[in-house]
């Protein structure tokens, strides 16, 4: 998230001219966070991929829609993703936990790794994931942007279209709710 805005503007300028390398850099820079945001908001990997695709297609089709005066490129991309996810959630009620999604990180398990500790870690992350997906969308998006994507309050406020104070209060509420859920699941004492 800590990219220099002028660099983004230059990238977009090159992209507008049809520079494929510029698009590649921009995609590599933002695809992870946009996809992750869509994934934790929708709870569905296929939807997240569709949203990420649509976000970048909009950038391809109309790069001049991004206005530097209105915020950062990251904020602009998250804003598109947020609208798309909301639309998806409204139409197909995809706001369900990611319980059945397979998380195959087996390749990360080396011979020297404590298998029990690793399983415990993965279980903990799984619970955290489920708890996160169980939060109401307004709190979840604040938590994803500020905690997972490490955005500042002003950046998150620009994406969410609300005041910084609102972001702060939503974030506080989201943390409280998340802790409560984790305690219920026996994850936090």
């Amino acid at each position, binding site marked *: 998230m800590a990219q220099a805005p002028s660099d983004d503007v230059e990238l977009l300028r090159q992209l507008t001219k049809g520079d494929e390398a510029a698009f590649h850099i921009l995609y590599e820079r933002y695809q992870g966070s946009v996809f992750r945001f869509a994934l934790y908001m929708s709870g569905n990997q296929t939807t997240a991929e569709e949203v990420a695709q649509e976000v970048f*297609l909009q950038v391809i089709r109309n790069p001049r829609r991004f206005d530097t005066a209105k915020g950062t490129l990251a904020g602009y991309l998250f804003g598109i993703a947020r609208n798309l996810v909301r639309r998806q959630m409204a139409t197909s009620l995809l706001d369900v936990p990611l319980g059945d999604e397979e998380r195959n990180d087996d390749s990360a398990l080396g011979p020297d790794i404590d298998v029990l500790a690793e399983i415990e870690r993965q279980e903990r992350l799984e619970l955290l994931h489920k708890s996160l997906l169980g939060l109401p969308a307004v709190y979840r998006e604040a938590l994803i942007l500020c905690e997972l994507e490490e955005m500042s309050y002003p950046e998150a406020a620009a994406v969410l279209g609300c005041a910084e104070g609102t972001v702060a209060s939503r974030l506080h509420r989201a943390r409280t709710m998340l802790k409560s859920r984790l305690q219920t699941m026996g994850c936090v004492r």
Partner: protein
Amino acid sequence: MTVQRDTLSEALRELAATSPQASPELGARLQEAFSQHHARRRLRRHAAVAAGLAACLVTALVWLATAKPTREVRKLEPPAHVAKTPAAEEQLAAPKLAQPSAASVTSAAAAKPRARGKQPSKARNHSVEVPVVIAAGDFIALPGFDSAVALGDSRMLRVDLPGSALQLIGYPIDGQLLDRRVEADVLVGQDGLPYAVRLVNARNLIKEKQRCEP
């Protein structure tokens, strides 16, 4: 509280770090979409440029086809109320032009390039209409002018003509202006005959005519 908060933040960041990624196919699809989009844009831009060039070419060809350079001069018939007699023609052509006064005739050599330079551009309109008003700066063919004869090495003389002579040529002059002497350029052919006349200060004459009219 702070410790718990930090732990939660760390756990969330760890969750983000271990999140699944978008498939590599998505990147490839988008890269292809980008290439196609810009290929189409380039094609549209080239087509627009080609269409513009074609339009310019067609315009230029049409203009070249229609704008033939010609030295035609307009033939003006005398008005109906003026009798077209050989005597009148003689009065117009012979005496006044044969011996112009030294003061009234300007240097033919000096006036010649001006006449040559202006004629072709104005000639485009000449064959279209026969004016019944005083034309400003246009050459008016005299009754004896034969368009079949090439003007060749013609000369131009600046003379003072009476208003009555201009009326004989076809200019709608009457009243007080008949007695006025009017400055005019006369185009004289190789054979020494006057072929065409144009008024030097036609605009002033028009104004005076309008003033004289009730």
